[in-house]
């Protein structure tokens, strides 16, 4: 069994009880993905599976044979950050930084969902294009908790990038 992480193929032969989150963190040492609750309640472990966001603590690694995973390390690096990563720095879209990788992974996929026209509870219409309004972003990001209370700044960071990339 094999899994692709940030473009690199890895073997999937460990303990079948290992979650995708613990596989990333402990087996592959990709510790950018954080464990905040291990129960799918906080969003700190959000990664992209075949482009879609998922709480990596709620799924076992062995369930992802053949899947392609993108983690925070795959979105950008210290020397070459993504537009969203740069916007988080500029807008102070964090404080302690622990929820930040999850917020950024989640926001990356969320923008794709808006682009694809998926409606949310905040959408006025079920059909047709969706605008990246503040209320849409707030609703769609509500699975990513930030206890420091940086929400207003996270919204500003995502909003700026969404305006550029989705308009």
């Amino acid at each position: 069994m094999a899994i692709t992480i940030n473009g690199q193929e890895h073997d999937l032969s460990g303990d079948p009880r290992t979650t995708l989150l613990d596989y990333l963190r402990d087996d592959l040492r990709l510790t950018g993905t954080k464990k905040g609750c291990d129960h799918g309640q906080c969003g700190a472990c959000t990664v992209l599976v075949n482009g879609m966001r998922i709480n990596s603590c709620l799924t076992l690694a062995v369930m992802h044979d053949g899947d392609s995973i993108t983690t925070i390390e795959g979105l950008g690096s210290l020397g070459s950050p993504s537009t969203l990563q740069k916007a988080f720095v500029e807008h102070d879209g964090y404080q302690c930084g622990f929820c930040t990788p999850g917020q950024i992974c989640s926001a990356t996929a969320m923008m794709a969902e808006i682009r694809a026209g998926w409606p949310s509870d905040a959408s006025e219409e079920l059909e047709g294009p969706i605008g990246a309004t503040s209320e849409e972003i707030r609703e769609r990001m509500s699975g990513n908790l930030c206890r420091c209370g940086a929400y207003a700044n996270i919204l500003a960071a995502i909003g700026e990038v969404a305006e550029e990339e989705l308009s």
Partner: protein
Amino acid sequence: MTAHLKQDKPDTRNLLDKMRQGVIGKPLSRPDGPAKVSGTAPYTADHAVENCLEGVLVTATIVRGEVADIDAQSVLTMPGVVAVIDDERLTARAAQGGADEAPEQPARKVGYFGQPIALVVAESFEEARDAAKQLKVDYRADDLSDIPLDPVQTDPEPQDDGTRQGDLAHAMTSAAHSVDLTYRTEGHASAAMEPHAAIAEWDGKRLTVHASLQMLNHNIIELADALDVKEEDIRLISRYVGGGFGSKLGISEETVAACVAAMELGRPVRVVMSRQQVFQCIMRRSETKQRLRLAADGDGKLIGFGHEARVSNLPGEDFAEPVLQSSEFLYAAENRLLQLEVARIHRMTAGSVRAPGEAVGMPALEAAMDVLAEKAGIDPVELRLRNIPDKHPSEGLPFSSHKLAECLKQGAEAFGWDSGPRKPRQRREGEWWIGTGMASAARVHNIEEAKARVTLKADGTALVETDMTDIGTGTYSILGQIAGEMLGLPVEKVLVELGDTRLPRGSGSGGSWGAASVGSAVFVACNRLRERLAGKVGIAADDLVLKDGTAGNDLRLTDLLDGEDLCEEGHYEPGEIEDDYTAAGFGAFFAQVRVNRFTGETRVDRMLGAFGFGRVLNEKTARSQCLGGITWSIGAALTESLLFDPVDGHLVNCDLAEYHVPVHRDIPDVEVIMVEERDPAASPIQAKGIGELGMCGGAGAIANAIYDACGARLFEFPMTPDRVLSALPE
């Protein structure tokens, strides 16, 4: 060399404003930001340690009693299991902030449901977790009927003598307007996003411990005492902390357990608490019951002020939620009665959660002030303005600085506060009633002893070193800015190293004192470096102009240093000044809410906070601290509530699905106004704390807005839909 300042009087030199670099106060992005957004910032559990074992804590399933037997054999045959640790040194509770001694030991003696009693260690996390669940434990449990669990049914003990001045009862009967109201608030959890974690390594003589902690300067003492190891044989490292909010002030159970296991097994051990364990084994904010008595004359001037509160904690804990802290000085009134009582019950430990005291005391007070304003027919902003004291009402001390009036006025104007007559249910949109409310903010200013080393290097860069932590507050930013400003260096030329007990002892992060305390230590060190540089130039330090790596004109710092590093350790101590002034941060909250007339749901439409907290050291990170506080205000107002089982006192909602912290959609447009000031008595850098002020009263503004929207006066926090519905007038 060491430069020492014991502050006995206000520092009116205001040196930072005389510097030329122009970085102090500027909204600069955090130097630690790129590491955080790229996932490369190493938090405790992220450290790669060779040959590391995994430990999982086992917690008690009784309320009070003793562990009679732990059947280690029941799990030692399971795959990967290495040991069951139930050593006498394991701790039963987390240390209170600044305890400087071991927390309650041994863990075998149980005082609350969910208390750690043992550690199962295995080769992998999965193996340890499984074995921890299978471990057979026998208890000698006390009879539940003998154990006090409910603060309401327990006789409380007075915390201290309280404050008594004049005759409050008489003031109440002779007042033109008075209120006598009782409020209840429920417990809160810090719920920092990073669970408590530790990795301990023991080389036979020395311990190296990565741990998620706020105050290494105290934690190393607590850990040494808990383990009976010398402080000099322990190194604590905490460079990145995923939030604290009080929960990481003292050493906690997983750190001691990891150390004991590493010492017994001779291999590194990592212990990370589960989210449920963090809720159950760390600190809760106590629930409170508060009686507010406010008596005013015909002009709305307070003549009587009573605030009594009952909180709870485990037997033997010194901490009592200091509910009355701001009530001591916020409003003038000659006749005063303030009294705090503690009920001793067997729920998990009560301790510091962001803004201990004011977070729950201020909303109750400010809600009562709103009722008084209505009774007296005075605009709520005006009522506060009329009651600002010119000195501490009972101690008689002058205020070091006081910006409440400015915050109230500037906040009201920016918010568009309508000071006309107020009556509930004046605005409706569909099924939503809309209203506004306001509240004062106040929080004592704390400052602590702190040390920091600053090295001006021959290459023209500077290094700032202290064991101080950055728990998201912006320590990395502001220390770089203070050093940069003083030494005339752009912040890119200043490296800040934190969170390692090998470095000089800082103040720790807690009580909003971090920036002012350790910032002052850096300032003291830099000031001495400036004197030494001035000596090299041959001028007085006051005449030395440092900017962009030059010492005036064409004199480059690198030339002046001529290959030499200059190093100074700054040592700041608060002195007698603490006895001469009342120092506090002040502010005002304004909120607009909508309340659903059918479901009772409250949504905050917009919120504004105006705060005066001395010098702003970094406009961006300071604003973030204010935003965080306001976010917590919304949680305390509407959703956050620890719920305990009445039968055995265990915490029922011990995860993030059941304990409701605010999420993105709960937080509306928030405006922050920073009412800049210089407070020369607060610290030599004229700064005060800001981490907690933003939640000291905010929930009261929301309560008052709910009343204005729909006419429901609530006396219980959080103001959940069921409570709003039952308080709605017909």
